Structure formats: structure tokens, C-alpha cells
């Protein structure tokens, strides 16, 4: 089948303002990934087209982009999922575009780092040197938020983040949640304090865009609600 791709283009080196280029992939198949189409365009039609990718199956988080107006990983949408032969591809919103579909991820990573996204505990925790004991139920408590791949689909679909890029954003809260609700960790208080600040969790207006955008099906809105509740009640449940 014939697919028409309209792709956002921007490159400071060629002096042109941002614009869209149209490409036709004449022999696409309904099971092709949108990433396959991009590879086909770059490989056979226009080598200057730039985008990030690596794993090609929705695990590494490299290729978040706006496809027909919604955030996806290009490697996790099939042509048939889109239900049309006209596909518009644009960079994710709210982060500076560096070239074509590549955005500057540094502001996003800074927000991530700001919530202390690492396990904190006294160094030598277990007398027998073996693993700490954690029941399956305790482990389950934070399972959902361990799935995050830092693709930024959520944060860059969030109206509060668009309005003010200083807001830590859903991805950072998800990563804080992963540790706050891990009963082995000792840094919850620090993280809750950080998220209680002006650019923290209270900026969330529960628009649900993040949960819809998440390619890992993390229930982000619920994770944010958990964190808000922990701040208000002072209890981690």
C-alpha cells in the first residue's frame, strides 16, 4: 500500500525555517512500523532526515515522536494501527528541537535527576550478606512505576509542562514514586519534600494526557495521586 508521510523538518545548518516535507512510501505493508517507514525514507529517499532510535521494539525509549497528533514510540505503532494512509510526524512538544525529530532531552533529564532517582539505604544492610527480604505484595506496590523507559511521551504531552517547562513533569514523579513506595529505600522523605515544592506534584491538573501517552501502560495519574496523598497524609501506604 501507498503511504504518504508529512514530516516536520528543521535544521539550523541549512538556514531554512521549520517546514514539512512530504514523502511517499509506495510499497508499505500494514504491519510495517512507523519506524520502518522513517528508516525507508532516510535510507532510500533523503539521508538528511534525522531521528533517534535503537531497540526497535518499544524498550529503549529513543523514538518518542508525535504521530498524527499523538505521542507514540515510532517503533511501537504499526501502519494498520493508525487507520489511515496519511501520516504526519512531528517532534515531541515542549523541548527545544535540535534537528528534525530530535529534541534536546536535557531539560527532561534534569527534572528526572532532581527527584533523586536512585536507591538510597545504609550500605551494608543485611547481616548474612544475602538479599533483603521483600514480600511479593511489597514488591507489587511499586511495580508499575519500575517500567518507565524515560521516553518523555508523558511529560511532553502534559499541558502543565507546556505551560511552564520548570514543572518536574509526570516522568520525574513516576521515577520518584518507584523509590518512595519501595519499602527497602530510605529516601522517601527527601523526595516528597522535593515534590511538594512549587514546581512539584501540585502543578499536575490531572489532565490524564500522560497516562494515555505512556507506551508502557503505566498508570501515571494514579502514581501522581499516590504521591500527592503521601505528601498530604505524611504516610506511605
Amino acid at each position: 500500500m501507498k503511504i504518504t508521510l508529512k514530516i516536520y523538518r528543521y535544521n539550523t545548518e541549512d538556514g531554512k525555517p521549520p517546514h514539512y516535507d512530504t514523502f511517499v512510501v509506495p510499497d508499505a505493508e500494514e504491519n510495517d512500523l512507523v519506524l520502518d517507514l522513517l528508516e525507508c525514507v532516510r535510507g532510500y529517499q533523503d539521508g538528511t532526515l534525522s531521528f533517534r532510535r535503537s531497540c526497535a521494539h518499544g524498550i529503549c525509549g529513543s523514538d518518542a515522536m508525535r504521530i498524527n497528533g499523538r505521542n507514540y514510540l515510532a517503533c511501537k505503532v504499526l501502519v494498520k494501527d493508525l487507520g489511515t494512509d496519511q501520516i504526519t510526524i512531528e517532534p515531541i512538544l515542549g523541548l527545544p528541537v535540535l534537528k528534525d525529530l530530535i529534541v534536546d532531552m536535557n531539560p527532561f533529564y534534569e527534572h528526572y535527576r532532581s527527584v533523586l532517582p536512585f536507591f538510597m539505604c545504609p550500605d551494608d544492610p543485611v547481616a548474612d550478606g544475602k538479599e533483603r527480604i521483600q514480600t511479593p505484595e511489597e514488591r507489587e506496590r511499586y511495580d508499575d512505576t519500575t517500567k518507565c523507559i524515560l521516553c518523555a511521551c508523558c511529560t511532553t504531552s502534559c499541558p502543565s509542562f507546556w505551560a511552564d517547562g520548570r514543572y518536574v513533569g509526570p516522568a520525574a514523579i513516576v521515577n520518584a514514586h518507584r523509590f518512595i513506595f519501595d519499602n527497602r529505600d530510605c529516601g522517601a522523605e527527601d523526595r516528597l519534600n522535593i515534590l511538594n515544592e512549587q514546581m512539584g506534584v501540585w502543578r499536575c491538573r490531572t489532565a490524564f494526557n500522560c497516562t494515555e501517552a505512556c507506551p508502557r501502560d503505566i498508570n501515571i495519574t494514579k502514581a501522581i495521586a499516590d504521591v500527592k496523598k503521601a505528601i498530604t497524609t505524611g504516610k506511605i501506604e
Partner: protein
Amino acid sequence: MTNIHQFEVVIVGAGGAGLMAAMFASRTAKTAVLSKLHPTRSHTGAAQGGIGAALGNLEEDHPDWHTYDSVKGSDYLGDQDAIEFMCNEAVEAIYDLEHMGLPFSRTPEGRIAQRPFGGHTNNVTGKPVMRSCYAADRTGHMILQTLYQQCLRNQVNFFDEFQVLDLILVKGAAAGVVAVELATGELHIFHAKAVIFATGGHGRIWEITSNAYAYTGDGAAIVLRRGLPLEDMEFFQFHPTGIYKFGILITEGVRGEGGVLINGEGQRFMEHYAPHVKDLASRDVISRAMYIEMREGRGVNGKRYLYLDVRPEIVNKYAEIDGRTRPDGTPYRTTAQEILTKLPDIIEFCRVYLGVDPVTQPIPVQPTAHYTMGGIPTNQYGQVVYDEKNSPMPGLYAAGEAACVSVHGANRLGTNSLLDLVVFGKHAGIHAARYARGVAFQDLPADAADPVRQRLDEMLNRTGKEKTAAIADAMKAAMFHHVGVFRTEEGMKEVIEDIRALKERYRHVHLDDRGKIFNTDLLNAWELGNMLDLAEVIAASAVARQESRGAHARQDFTKRDDVNWLKHTLAWQKEGAIELRYKPVVITKFQPKERVY
């Protein structure tokens, strides 16, 4: 203008191996980690099923059993001293990961959960043993995240999206690397006392693959061009269960949970090929069995695929036939809910890419290119060794899938790669930092970045008409068909000719992008150059080895030949030709015997 940085230890690669090395090297040495991908995009994140260690949390197990299984799995080509070292270190390595916060799945008692995996057995009964420590089916993701997080906590210096293009050697020792910063196109020299390559494998050389686009063998190719040999490159693993056409991996953990392979006639066939462990035989054994089934017309609907069936009723049917029990002695029976909990990502891959729900439908699978057993030769401290006598190259290290210690020999057991990363990444980091403390920085040559600059300029100014993608497609198809699961002299010789012709075409590659900012056109072409070099080494090493061993299965030499071939291949690139020499395998406790499952 070239930017110059100075670090005592420079690590190339931020996957499991690179991050582990960074954690340990940065404790005592000024350390930098360079990665062409942001660290959390590394391929370690794709690993699914688990990491092997004889914790014995659910049933009796011993590091000695793990050692024997790995030796046998390697078809006796693994070095037994290194394998024993790895399996002994495994237990502590897992506890270390847990102490760093890794969220392993848990047993009802709250200990680290373990599952069976191919080739891992109770050495007394010969039955599969639960040795694979897992975090659902995203163990690699958790390892990568945890290590990266701890590196952040320890303030390791990262240079993200810096692609290393060359190694600087001065007076026979490592002195640094040359990298391009992707965002600006600027060249950077990293002046170092010790360099560790942890760049991963090269599975993108084959058409159907479970490997990331980034798996282009950069580290191995750089080292090869700098005059060092590569070891056992003919040994490349094809994993039995890739999603049909996509190649996306379906972990062996599915079979660990009771899934079975079914042919087009609805028969479970592995019992004919591996009567004892059946669907949990080694990967090479199963991939070959699948090829034979398909060749004899028992593919599904006459096509090049078979079914992996993990529907609860099928799992339970065969568990009953096999007499499989739970650790408490009750018969093994599963439910849809248990499968969903233990294999959530696999279920999702099948739904997204195939529109198949594994709880109610079988999964179409075919063998997929998966793992690089060969690579940059090292000893168990991660030191790169460059000749038949295993002489170490001062200051140069390699770890992870890029390296060949060799603990995987002719065929890697599942769960042993993540283990390899953690154990040898750590030791490479420790050793490199210790080495760095004892030596001064060498003087750099005035033109350290010049060879790279000239090569890039030359590539940017080519006037030919060839396309990178077209050459890559031709290479991948040739390698998949002739240097894949089964091999013949005729087919491999044809491939060597093909690769030489493709290399000639490659000299005329045309680049559309002449800019500096994220010039992915240029870097894709540079990576193709690496893959072509490695493909030639692989095919040349493979055609020379006139036997069948592990993943190297020849139709014209169907038996293993310990008299002539119980030895490691070393391959050099010399004046455009491949030179092969051999070194002995280290055998300590286990004399080679016939390998049956």
C-alpha cells in the same frame, strides 16, 4: 578544532558492562563514560528472562553445577577457569545488585525469585533447575536502570551521545580514544591511561535479528583496525524464538514457565531432539531442530515459522506428561493470571506486533540473530590479550558482549550474558583503575584525531551513487542465509565474495547529509563499514573451522572434532586479508564429552 579531555579511565559504552565498570573504576580513578546512546537506551535494557546464579532459593543448586552446565553449553569451547570464576562470583553479584535496589521478583518467602532456563540443570537428576534470577520479564531493564541510577548517585562523568570512532595506541599501550559529539559534529580526544570497550555486540549484521540498531560492533571493529585480533567470531547465537518476521525476542523464560514449541502438524517436536530437557535444551540445539522441522515441511501452513504455545491448557497438558512439579512437590499447573504476571512484556509484544494474545493463541516464531559469543579477546580481569600466548595489551580492556573472555565458547546459555556483564564489567573496572594508578599519562601524538578526520572528510566528499541502506540490506540477507543456523563451505565462500563486492560498493557510498549536527547519515554509513569488516571476519573464521560445534553447525562437517578444532580462533585484518591463528582452550575439571540434552 579538537577538544581534549583527560581522564584516567575512559569507558566506551554505558550498558550493563560499561556502567558496572564505571561504578568500580570511579571509586579510585577519575573516570569518564562515553556512549553513543543515552545510557538508559543501551541494549541491556532489552534483556528479558533473567540473570543466572546458583542462589538455590527454591531448590538445591550449586555454583559447580552452573559451571558444568556452562562448560557443556559452550560445547567445551569456553575457558573453564573463567567460567568457574564467573559462576562462583555470580551469587555475590546478585546480592550486590539487590543491595543497589534492583527490584527482583520475589518468592512467597520474600527471597529473589528464580525460574528454569535452557541448559541449566540439576547435575544429579539432569532435570531443569531454577537458576535464573528475574524481575518479571524485564530483568535487563531493571539492571540497566539500577546501575545507571547508582552511577548518578556516585556522580560518574557521562558524555552522552558521544560516538567513539578510534582508539589511540602509543608505544603498544592504550592512550585514549577519539569521539564525535553527535549534537555538534565536533571531534573530541579523550586522553586516558586505561580504556575499556563495553560497546555490545553486532547482531545487526543479520536480516532477522533481536538486536538494536546500535548493535553494529563498533568496539570490535575499532580494535580490529588498530591491528588487534578478534576471537571466535564464527560463533554467533541464533535464538529459537523471535517473533515471526520482526525478529523481536520472546524470552526462553516462556518455555521456563512451561511453554512448548509446536510444529505445523500440531506436534511438540523437541522431545525427538532433546529427550531429557526437551524445550529447555540449549539454544543452538533448538534453533537447529526448528530449521529441520521447517525444512522437512512441518512449518506452520508451509511457511518459515513454528508455534510457541504458552496457553495455560497446553502448558498444563505437557507439564502433566513431563511429570513437572512445583518446589513443594505438587504438580505444576499454571493459570492465565500467572502467565500475565510473570511475562507481562512478552504478552504485550505479541499483542502489539502480532495482534496475538498468547493466553488464548499460539505465537508464530522463527530463529532470530541474537548474541555475539566472539569478540575482543580478554582474560578474566578484562585485559585485552592480543596473541596466542594471551599477552595483555597495557591499558586496554573490554567487557560485556563486546568481549570474549571466553565464558560462552561456542554457545551461550541464557542468563549468562547479564552475569558476564556484571562480573567482568566489575573486574575490568577494578583492574583498569588499579593499572591507572601505577602509570603516568603517555604523550599523545600531535595528530591523534587526524586519521578519523581524514576518514570522515573522505566519506563526506565521495561522489559515488551507492546507498548505505541498499548495501546493508544485501549484507544482512547474505549473512542470514549462508552464515546463519546452518552453514556450508559453498555458501560461506559465496558470502565472502559478496562481502568483498559490497565493500567495493561501500567505497562509493553517497551521503545526502554533509552537515555537522546529528549527521545520522554519516554515522550510519560509518557503522555499516564496521559491520562489513566484521562480517568478513565472521565468514572467514567460519569457513576455516571444519567441524560443527555449538552455534557453528556445518552441513558438510556435521561432527564436533576435538582432535583438530578444540581451539579458539584468532583473526587479524592484515592488508585487506583475514589472517587466522589459533590458541588453546583452558580445560580444568571437565574433559570434553558428547553433548546430549
